[in-house]
């Protein structure tokens, strides 16, 4: 590195004395409108999903009730009325063929999507952190073994294995739980590899060496020195895992091996969509749009979290431009 010049005066937005890392991250996140917007949209979605039974009651609809009278059976079950049968009772219209209320089905679908995505992420993080830490700090043999297993887990095609798994699990096993377990157990390799690599590089840092010299045990070092520094990258990766998991759930349900009817799910609603391209486009566009927006919002939020938490993100602005200045 060239001898970089330090700013003579503190940069604007310089930190108040004593500001810890968490408030700094929050301040950085607040400066990203796209991430905030995404976060807001997701908060709204979560709220709606949580309140799904309440809203269903409010609209007076049951997501699984058939309404044969609302579809035109002569034309193969196209909803009566315009825009997929939107009416005062059915705010977003009805499902073609069955006449089930689309609004409540989409809401209940959101519950499944969010539950599986978040649940699987939690499981992935738990397994990944434990495996990664053990691989980095455990004894040589154990460490190498776990590292190998991690490599294998990363190499295996998740979707294919998850599909195969659904073939052998008894049909009465609760599906959302199965999806959480399948995604979580098959896809923790990424977290583990990252945690291992980070731990190995952190372990060589001087402040960890200093802690060792002061007589701290390995466990205490892991808890006090390593985990706080690992929190940022783990949270970042977890935030980016959520949309990935959501897509996997939707994909499995789309393929017909995920959430089983009558439980609604966005992906599952789309699996029958091809038939209705012309007759009822709203039925295709609503779940597709909802899934697209949700996944995009999670991705944008995750990206915002990444830049807010990356300790170099703030300084990268400065160091980076400083580098370019001399460049």
């Amino acid at each position, binding site marked *: 590195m060239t001898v970089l*010049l330090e700013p003579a005066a503190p940069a604007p937005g310089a930190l108040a004395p004593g500001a810890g890392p968490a408030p700094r991250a929050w301040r950085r996140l607040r400066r990203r409108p796209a991430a905030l917007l995404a976060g807001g949209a997701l908060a709204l979605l979560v709220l709606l999903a949580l309140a799904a039974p309440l809203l269903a009651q409010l609209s007076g609809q049951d997501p699984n009730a058939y309404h044969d009278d609302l579809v035109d059976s002569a034309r193969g079950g196209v909803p009566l009325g315009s825009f997929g049968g939107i009416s005062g009772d059915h705010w977003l219209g009805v499902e073609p063929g069955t006449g089930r209320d689309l609004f409540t089905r989409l809401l209940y679908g959101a519950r499944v999507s969010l539950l599986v995505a978040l649940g699987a992420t939690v499981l992935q993080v738990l397994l990944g952190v434990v495996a990664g830490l053990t691989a980095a700090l455990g004894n040589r043999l154990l460490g190498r073994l776990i590292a190998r297993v991690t490599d294998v887990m990363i190499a295996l095609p998740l979707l294919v294995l998850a599909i195969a798994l659904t073939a052998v699990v008894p049909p009465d096993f609760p599906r959302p739980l199965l999806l959480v377990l399948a995604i979580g157990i098959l896809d923790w390799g990424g977290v583990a590899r990252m945690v291992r690599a980070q731990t190995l590089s952190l372990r060589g840092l001087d402040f960890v060496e*200093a802690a060792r010299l002061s007589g701290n045990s390995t466990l205490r070092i892991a808890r006090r020195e390593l985990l706080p520094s690992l929190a940022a990258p783990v949270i970042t990766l977890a935030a980016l895992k959520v949309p990935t998991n959501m897509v996997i759930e939707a994909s499995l349900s789309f393929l017909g091996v995920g959430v089983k009817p009558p439980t609604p799910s966005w992906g599952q609603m789309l699996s029958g969509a091809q038939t209705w391209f012309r007759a009822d486009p709203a039925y295709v566009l609503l779940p597709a749009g909802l899934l697209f927006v949700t996944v995009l919002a999670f991705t944008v939020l995750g990206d915002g979290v990444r830049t807010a938490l990356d300790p170099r993100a703030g300084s990268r602005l400065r160091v980076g431009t400083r580098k370019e200045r001399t460049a």
Partner: protein
Amino acid sequence: MSDLLVDVRDLVVDFPVGGPGAYVRAVDGVSFTMGPGHALGIVGESGSGKSTVAAALLGLHRGTGTRLGGTVRVAGTDVGGASAAELRRLRGATAAMVFQDPLSSLDPYYAVGDQIAEVYRVHAAVSRRAARARAVSVLDRVGIPDAVRRSRARPHEFSGGMRQRALIAMALVCEPRLLIADEPTTALDVTVQAQILDLLHGLRREEGLGLLLVTHDVGVAAESVDELLVMRDGHAVERGPVAEVLAGPADPYTRALLAAVPRLDAPRKPRPSRETATTAAGVAGVAGGDGAEVPVVEALGLRREFGRGKRRVTAVGGVSLAVRAGETLGVVGESGSGKSTLGRMLVGLLEPSSGRVRHAGDEARGIPAGVQMVFQDPVSSLNPRRSVGESIADPLRAAGERDEAAIRARALALLERVGLEPGHYDRYPHEFSGGQRQRVGIARALAPRPRLIVCDEPVSALDVTTQAQVTALLAELQQELGIALVFIAHDLAVVRQVSDRVAVMRSGEIVEEGPVDEVYDRPAHPYTRQLLDAVPVLDPELAAARRHRAVGPS
């Protein structure tokens, strides 16, 4: 007017920071001129704006959002007003720059010869083959042996010194009139540094090049230039012929800067007699009788190897030493000499491949109690997520101290002792400068009342004035507390300032060890002599004499 090679008037450089319209002034009204074939050294500490001035000469700030004021003319070209094409012609062909880190300054993917040829073809309409031949000839000119073959190697296959030579060859390829060297030897070992400085000197004399040397090291500048420009906080504080500035600095900052530069030839400051040291050690509960005193740390035939099979390298190959209470052992050596590996084995962070370490007579397994370390890098040596007070308190907590009030009181006392304020307890490392962080590191090392502290390059990341303060603090504390100190450094002058005894390391072995004044004044081993000879001195005449000795009159 137009016969000036460099003409800088009222140069102002503002860097954008964060929000819109927010700027930080890096250079504030600097003016200087330089004639063809002359050599000017710009000297200053980090943050003085010296590298920024160098970059401004080539218009490297263009397109980065930086605000520039004043005029910069290089060989008649107005850098500020030049078109993009004119600027490209200036860069490399008229004025060429040599950067600090030779490894990262070359493209890792291409052969060195091809990179030099590429630069040549930007400025000269020649065939690929002719450019390649030209590249080989400049590589040969800068003293790269077997240039035809070496030109096909990629940068990582070169040693540090060879890479810097290759960069200089790239600078020469278009026969520029001005060479701008930004810290060209900072990343190099002292013996290699001397060779590169000699090369630059020879090029100046033989090719009639103008040289603008940017450096933090006054000694390097004294060896290489005719005139000095001293910068501080974006201002030029002093300018004059190098001998005059060194002999009689007019500006108070220059005086302070020169006073802080550690001198190789200055005998160490008088220190309290051995008696007091032993008493202090007695207080710490370590000492025995004078003659039968047990060393605080003792190494017996320490070896350490890394890697396996064919790639096995010996970092430390059979080192024995002993350090007593109240004593400072300096360990000097160039990069790769194994000095840091040795230090880590002494404190138990690294297991030796063979040999033993004894602490106060006992053979230790793992990490023994009562040893601490001060690290080189002020950034990574403190946990960024913990307040500095908590960092200092950590060894106390680890030792089982539960009394929160006692912990805090001791941490506060230590903060004060190393020259920081008690109010700093709850602040985070990023709020401190490098020197302050190093003080925190020292306080942390002192917290558990150790018998031995190993300092691994504790001041090499610091500016020279800060360096002087931190070394003084270490020496003071050591005398006061009677701790045994191992001071590892590559800088021979710094080691002389703090050590009682010194061990010179090369390739994992101690080639010479003895009382510091004896080793420095009457070196017995040829390698020690070579090291001492290579250190730049703050006297242009002495430097010329050394150069005369080294290369011979040519």
